[in-house]
């Protein structure tokens, strides 16, 4: 079990309200329920990840993830189920983290679990070299001009 960075929040359940409300709400408070200026980092995110701090497969901030509709969603715990719910349409790792108000690494761990189990699949971001493709840039430029 990993030592949390900060003191253990005595009523860890109190942090659960991040889940009871609308995960899509526009509350963009950095860190949200997971940070407390006095107490430091709350312990709960690492409880969700079962103490793990390293995802089982490589995911980037912008890896795109989508649910495969494979497997039995009833067998998932709450946090994995919530993460999977957000992946009904292609979604980035960063978006899942933000909407669940979880630190990035915890979202990666949850999503990596889902990918390992076959419940989700991911597209890693392209290597930097591809970003100089003029055809790609032209598509982006035309897209922006249409907005």
């Amino acid at each position, binding site marked *: 079990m990993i030592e949390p*960075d900060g003191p253990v929040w005595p009523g860890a359940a109190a942090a659960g309200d991040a889940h009871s409300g609308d995960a899509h709400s*526009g509350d*963009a*408070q*950095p*860190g949200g329920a*997971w940070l407390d200026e006095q107490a430091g*980092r709350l312990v709960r995110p690492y409880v969700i990840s079962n103490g793990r701090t390293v995802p089982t*497969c490589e995911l*980037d*901030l*912008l*890896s*795109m*993830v*989508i*649910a*495969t*509709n*494979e*497997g039995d969603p009833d067998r998932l715990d709450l946090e994995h189920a919530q993460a999977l719910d957000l992946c009904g349409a*292609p979604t*980035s790792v*960063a*978006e899942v*983290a*933000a*909407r669940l108000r979880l*630190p*990035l*690494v915890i*979202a990666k761990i949850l999503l990596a679990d889902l*990918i390992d189990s*076959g*419940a*989700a*699949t*991911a*597209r*890693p*971001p*392209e*290597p*930097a070299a*591809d*970003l*100089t*493709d*003029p*055809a*790609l*840039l*032209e*598509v*982006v*430029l035309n*897209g*922006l*001009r249409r*907005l």
Partner: protein
Amino acid sequence: MAYEGFEAGERAAGGVDSRALPLALKLLVAGGFGVGKTTFVGSVSEIEPLSTEAVITAASVGTDSLDGVAGKSTTTVALDFGRITIDPGIVLYLFGTPGQERFWFMWNELSDGALGAIVLADTRRLEACFDAVDFFERRGIVFLVALNEFDEAVRYDPEEVRVALELGPDVPIVACDARDRRSGIAALAALVEHLLAAVQIRSPS
């Protein structure tokens, strides 16, 4: 038209082809604290801006990597981001870099693979964007400078700004109102035009 120029997606599973997932491109919006990065991201994004936070490990100044754990410190950076869907195959993500937290410069995951960057500048406090300009120059990340037109700010000649920021002749300087979606999108389009020009100079066809 969806962009289909890439062969990607190793992890096809469960009948969903991961190649069907859109390509996510990353743009950075940098600049000093209070210069309007969050406003900019919010006005161009198609979703309510989201926020995420990551713990980064930064080697302390004056130590080298051989020092190991003792020479490292961790810090948490929070950043706002928004999304623009270009077509079914391409999604742009705009990340507003944390303004007060110098450690974001150490966050390779944020800057690696960035398509380009916008340095948002307030002409009343140009020095606030020195760090960002310096960072993108050193990392070779293509950027432009967008002068956020605050109501009370004196309008400077872009060339005066170029001199003040010691920008090369090729770095575009555009005017921008971070509160205005069209203006923000125009700045993004100017950045992509600049990227395209840079690519074409490097490899004339």
